[in-house]
């Protein structure tokens, strides 16, 4: 056999086969045992590279379950969803769904939610760098038009609603965390905000009204509409205070007027 596509298809099949002895030996120079062993190196490389990418994206999951169990999860995930991208920083997007579906992982009920959060944190690291919010530009907008503004969120920002207090779970598993290692499970859904003030990705637990507001703003609704939605959730929602906090932390980085 000499056709390049056919040779590569058989090599690829040998790399992904459940066991190495899957009929690729005749492609390569060397005895059966030698070829099997050397094919094993390539099989190991591909799996190790993908496993390393998963560990880099999901450090908190790895801390929660321990390295040994994590390595089992990574291996099972790869078998179900192999890498399709040359950029391994994009590998692992479906890990949360896998954890929700994989019986051994479901024994820790909040694991999938933590994975959803960690994926957003991981991707936030690579998000674009917008400029900072320019208050002078805002001052030029006549007050009567200000409620028609559409706020722009930093591309790294994401709001997640989860059944478990994932922001707190994430916080206590950070290397720098020195507080009390405890999580209060209230049984109520929580909202986590992923944001990146400059280069370091942060996570905060936010209120329902704040989550509603940021989601509306991120969907392109006007300040007016986002405010109304937030106040429906909590009549005491303080727009001025939240805007200044979000501008400060680069959650809100710009605005548009009249459909800009």
């Amino acid at each position, binding site marked *: *056999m*000499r*056709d*390049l*596509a056919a*040779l*590569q*298809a058989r*090599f*690829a099949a040998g*790399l*992904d086969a459940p066991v190495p002895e899957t009929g690729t030996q*005749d*492609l*390569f*120079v*060397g005895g059966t045992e030698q*070829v099997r*062993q*050397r*094919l094993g*190196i*390539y099989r190991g*490389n*591909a799996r190790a*590279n*993908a496993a390393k*990418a998963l560990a880099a994206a999901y450090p908190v999951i790895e801390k929660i379950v321990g390295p040994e169990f994590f390595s089992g999860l990574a291996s099972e995930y790869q078998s179900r969803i*192999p*890498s*399709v*991208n*040359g*950029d*391994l*920083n994009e*590998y692992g997007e479906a890990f949360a769904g896998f954890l929700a579906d994989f019986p051994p992982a479901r024994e820790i009920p909040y694991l999938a939610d933590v994975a959803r959060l960690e994926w957003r944190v991981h991707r936030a*690291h*690579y*998000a*674009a*760098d917008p400029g900072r919010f320019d208050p002078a530009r805002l001052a030029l907008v006549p007050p009567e038009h200000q409620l028609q503004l559409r706020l722009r969120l930093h*591309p*790294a920002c994401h709001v997640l609603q989860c059944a478990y207090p994932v922001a707190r779970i994430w916080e206590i598993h950070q290397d720098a965390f020195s507080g009390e290692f405890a999580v209060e499970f209230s049984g109520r859904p929580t909202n986590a905000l992923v944001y*990146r003030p400059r*280069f*370091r990705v942060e996570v905060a637990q936010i209120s329902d009204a704040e989550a509603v507001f940021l989601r509306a703003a991120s969907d392109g609704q006007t300040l007016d509409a986002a405010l109304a939605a937030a106040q429906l959730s909590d009549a005491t929602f303080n727009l001025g205070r939240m805007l200044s906090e979000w501008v400060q932390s680069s959650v809100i980085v710009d605005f548009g007027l009249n459909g800009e």
Partner: protein
Amino acid sequence: MSLLSSPDGNAEARGVGIGLRACHYGKFLGSHPPTDWVEVHSENYFGDGGYDLHVLEHVRSQYPVSLHGVALSLGSADGVRAAHLAKLKRLADRIEPALVSEHLCWGALGPRHFNDLLPLPYTREALAQIVSHVTQVQETLQRRILIENVSSYLQFRAHDMSEFYFLAELAKRSGCGILLDVNNVFVNSVNHGFDPGQALLEIPTQAVDEIHLAGHSAAGELLIDDHGSRVAPQVWNLYETACRRFGPVPTLIEWDTSIPPLDILLDEAAMAARISQAACA
């Protein structure tokens, strides 16, 4: 090695560089380590923004930068992935690198990406395919690229020529340059049983535009290209031979697993500079 590279202006890679890895970012942000140039893995900077690109742009303002890709899969029978090439182009436009390089290998087929440097069969058909893919990349990037010989553990039975004849032909037909990884030549010479010095003679003296040096490890009688240690004595010898044949080519020290303190990398770079200067004197 020159301590001062003129900021931004001097984009050409000369002398000895080192691979820039995340664990050494702090040193490059806080000081000006004495290296002639740096090389990074292109894919690590494929994001839209963020810290890695911020560091790379800072480093680029101080040193010539080489973008070394590991996942373009130039040897795939079904061609180069357009999205991957577009990201490489975006990065190259942003960084304006001194050099852009990739590997003589494949890593993807259909939707699957193995994220590894898999060996090619050195056949006329594979040569024609990779010539056309390299040409496509050079046209897209509007620049010449360099192609590196890889370490391998398996050799296809199907072959029409040697690895280094294949690489030399690729350079001749596509106009690309050769990134000669001297460690990979040595590793393959042991793994597949050939004379590494003879292999160098198959490459035309003017075809090499960059040299890589790295450490390897042994697993039984097989050598593994793990970039996890100092350059081996036999590889330094082969480097000296390469310097005599190819002249003062920009050389890079690569280290990717168990990465040591920066001083060790700089020490290896100084060794390469001494050998190159003596051999090319």
